[in-house]
């Protein structure tokens, strides 16, 4: 049915929210857009290429809409796109998504789409949910009633590709047009196509769902459940990830030792061991944590629990001036603030949208994970329970900062009430392990790619800046070298030589370009617990927070002769100029709070600027978040010291 022309034919996925459009889009195009078991994930039209056999089809994933006639941003976008009013030609084929468990309601959108006079094929999803509710769909009857091909699929399975391809090939303009008010028609059509296999099942499922919902959305029990679930999640991550982390750490240490054994001491060896292996290794070591976090979160999302958490969160968000629509963007922010800010486009009110964009980067994203893990590992070494709780605390602190900041901006520069929230709760469903593994793999690969490119390049540049200019050894080092010659035993000689090497290496880094920048920034960052070495790591992670860990390892590695094995051990064993520990509990606590709240992400600022249409909101976001992070980081450190923590 698809016409052949110079440009590839265009097929558009259209359906109500949470009917599996993006899942199929990802499956067909091999892309990895974010999908979850709650509505409103797709904020914009996404375009991908699908190649069934020898043909190439341009596939467009539109945001989910309940109706094309509503005065909402997503409805307007779909309406304009389908009518060819966005500078693009009208689509060649429409794939209308029908939810087998809510057939009558989803048929209303189909009825509206028939007015567009575009060839249509229908994709029936959620057949498993319908079956749980004691019903199934007679595909042949439905095809007969609609006059277009209908294909039943599970978008998560590869076997769906063939049937969808055939359905698109045979798409046709419907011969029967439903009436202008399609409510009776859609109900009658659904009644004819639905086969009820177990009349009691729907009532049983509804009762069970209602009972669970009453508990998990209860203001007290629901909140406690949410906190318990999140704490258990982070505890599991800390507990399970510690083994693979140790293995990776050991692997990089062995690699470093092998290179040191094979090459003579000199700049090239130092670049490879301290700059490349030390810097990249200290980032790669966090991959198990990232993979586990996204694996478990994906499982949680798919069950439908997070949509209930959204409802619960709405009660807390509204008094703080955040609209209920902000929940999905804010939830997306746990992965990355950028899609969260883009997702805010679906918030109809400009004031609501601006408030959401301003506070979204407070939510802990995956880039913060390595920093959290490093600092929490130092704070609670060998105490996974406390470490898990501290992790939950970091996420909570980010969320609380977002809420209070929203309250502040809504009372000052963005006055006005926020809109109420209406969201359809998806059914509870069994999560797919395969899909969760795919998500975890994709997130880990993205992180590894970044470690192998941007972070590697930053580490090389930073190594050079912390190694040059060459500084002449001080009188103290010279004196130690003279003592080596005069030492009577081999052990004494080795000990003095080690001391001289360590001192010289440290003096070298302190006098390097990096060291000078660190010394310059030290007075500003000292209140949050940073000395000049930590200041270098903070400055270098301005563009991307996760660089903090690798930068710190490069700087410490260049001045290290302690033989500490592993990146966390190296940080733990490092000292300041006065001989005290580099990261005492109070410093680690101050820095942890600083990194929870600081805006150390250049791409997010660029997106804020683009989405708000001006630099001033991005600058406000940067200034406000940095100032808050500094103030609360310093307060935390002072408090910890007052409580007796060194």
């Amino acid at each position: 049915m698809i016409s052949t022309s110079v440009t590839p034919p265009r097929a558009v996925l259209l359906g109500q929210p949470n009917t599996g459009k993006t899942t199929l889009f990802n499956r067909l195009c091999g892309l990895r857009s974010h999908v979850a078991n709650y509505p409103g994930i797709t904020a914009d039209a996404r375009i991908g290429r699908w190649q069934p056999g020898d043909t190439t089809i341009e596939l467009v994933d539109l945001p989910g809409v309940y109706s094309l006639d509503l005065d909402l941003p997503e409805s307007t976008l779909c309406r304009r796109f389908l009518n060819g009013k966005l500078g693009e030609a009208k689509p060649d084929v429409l794939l209308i998504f029908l939810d087998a468990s809510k057939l009558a309601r989803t048929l209303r959108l189909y009825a509206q789409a028939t007015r567009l006079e575009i060839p249509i094929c229908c994709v029936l999803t959620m057949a498993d949910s319908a079956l749980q509710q004691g019903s199934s769909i007679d595909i042949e009857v439905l095809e007969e009633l609609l006059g277009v091909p209908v294909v039943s699929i599970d978008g998560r399975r590869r076997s769906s590709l063939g049937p969808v391809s055939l359905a698109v090939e045979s798409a046709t303009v419907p011969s029967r047009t439903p009436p202008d008010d399609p409510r009776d028609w859609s109900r009658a059509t659904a009644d004819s196509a639905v086969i009820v296999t177990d009349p009691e099942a729907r009532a049983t499922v509804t009762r069970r769902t209602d009972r669970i919902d009453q508990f998990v959305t209860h203001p007290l029990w629901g909140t406690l459940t949410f906190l318990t679930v999140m704490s258990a999640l982070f505890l599991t991550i800390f507990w399970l990830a510690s083994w693979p982390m140790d293995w990776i750490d050991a692997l990089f240490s062995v690699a470093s030792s092998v290179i040191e054994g094979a090459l003579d001491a000199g700049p090239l060896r130092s670049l490879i061991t301290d700059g490349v292996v030390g810097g990249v290794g200290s980032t790669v070591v966090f991959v198990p944590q990232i993979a586990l976090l996204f694996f478990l979160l994906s499982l949680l999302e798919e069950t439908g629990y997070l949509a209930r958490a959204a409802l619960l969160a709405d009660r807390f968000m509204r008094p703080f001036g955040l609209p209920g629509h902000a929940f999905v963007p804010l939830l997306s922010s746990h992965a990355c603030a950028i899609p969260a800010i883009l997702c805010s486009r679906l918030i109809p009110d400009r004031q609501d949208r601006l408030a959401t964009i301003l506070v979204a980067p407070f939510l802990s994203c995956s880039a913060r994970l390595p920093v959290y893990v490093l600092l929490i590992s130092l704070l609670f070494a060998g105490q996974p329970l406390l470490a898990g709780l501290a992790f939950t605390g970091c996420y909570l602190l980010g969320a609380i900062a977002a809420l209070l900041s929203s309250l502040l901006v809504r009372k000052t520069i963005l006055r006005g009430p926020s809109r109420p929230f209406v969201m359809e709760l998806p059914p509870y469903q069994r999560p797919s392990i395969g899909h969760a593994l795919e998500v975890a793999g994709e997130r880990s690969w993205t992180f590894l790619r970044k470690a192998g490119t941007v972070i590697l390049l930053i580490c090389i540049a930073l190594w050079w800046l912390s190694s040059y200019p060459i500084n002449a050894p001080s009188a103290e080092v010279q004196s130690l070298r003279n003592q080596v010659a005069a030492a009577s035993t081999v052990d004494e000689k080795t000990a003095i030589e080690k001391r001289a090497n360590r001192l010289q290496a440290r003096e070298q880094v302190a006098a390097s370009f990096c060291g000078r920048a660190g010394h310059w920034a030290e007075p500003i960052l000292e209140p949050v617990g940073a000395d000049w070495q930590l200041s270098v790591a903070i400055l270098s992670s301005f563009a991307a927070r996760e660089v903090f860990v690798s930068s710190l390892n490069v700087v410490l590695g260049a001045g290290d002769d302690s033989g500490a094995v592993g990146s966390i051990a190296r940080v733990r064993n490092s000292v300041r100029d006065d001989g005290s520990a580099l990261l005492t509990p109070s410093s680690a606590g101050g820095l942890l709070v600083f990194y929870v709240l600081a805006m150390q992400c250049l791409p997010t600022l660029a997106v804020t600027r683009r989405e708000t249409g001006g630099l001033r909101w991005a600058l406000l976001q940067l200034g406000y978040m940095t100032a808050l992070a500094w103030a609360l980081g310093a307060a935390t450190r002072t408090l910890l010291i007052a409580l007796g923590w060194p």
Partner: protein
Amino acid sequence: MGNSQLPTDETQFWIVSGIAALAVLLLISRLLRKKSCGGCSSKVLPKDGGKH
């Protein structure tokens, strides 16, 4: 001590400085040509201008 035949420290300095300069250039070029976000995993075709 290793057993390699590496160039003198001065030659090594020029080599590592060249590598560092190249790293900075590559970093700048990556930042300039980046159209979509580097943080999330969404791969976006250029056609939608990095919107996702």
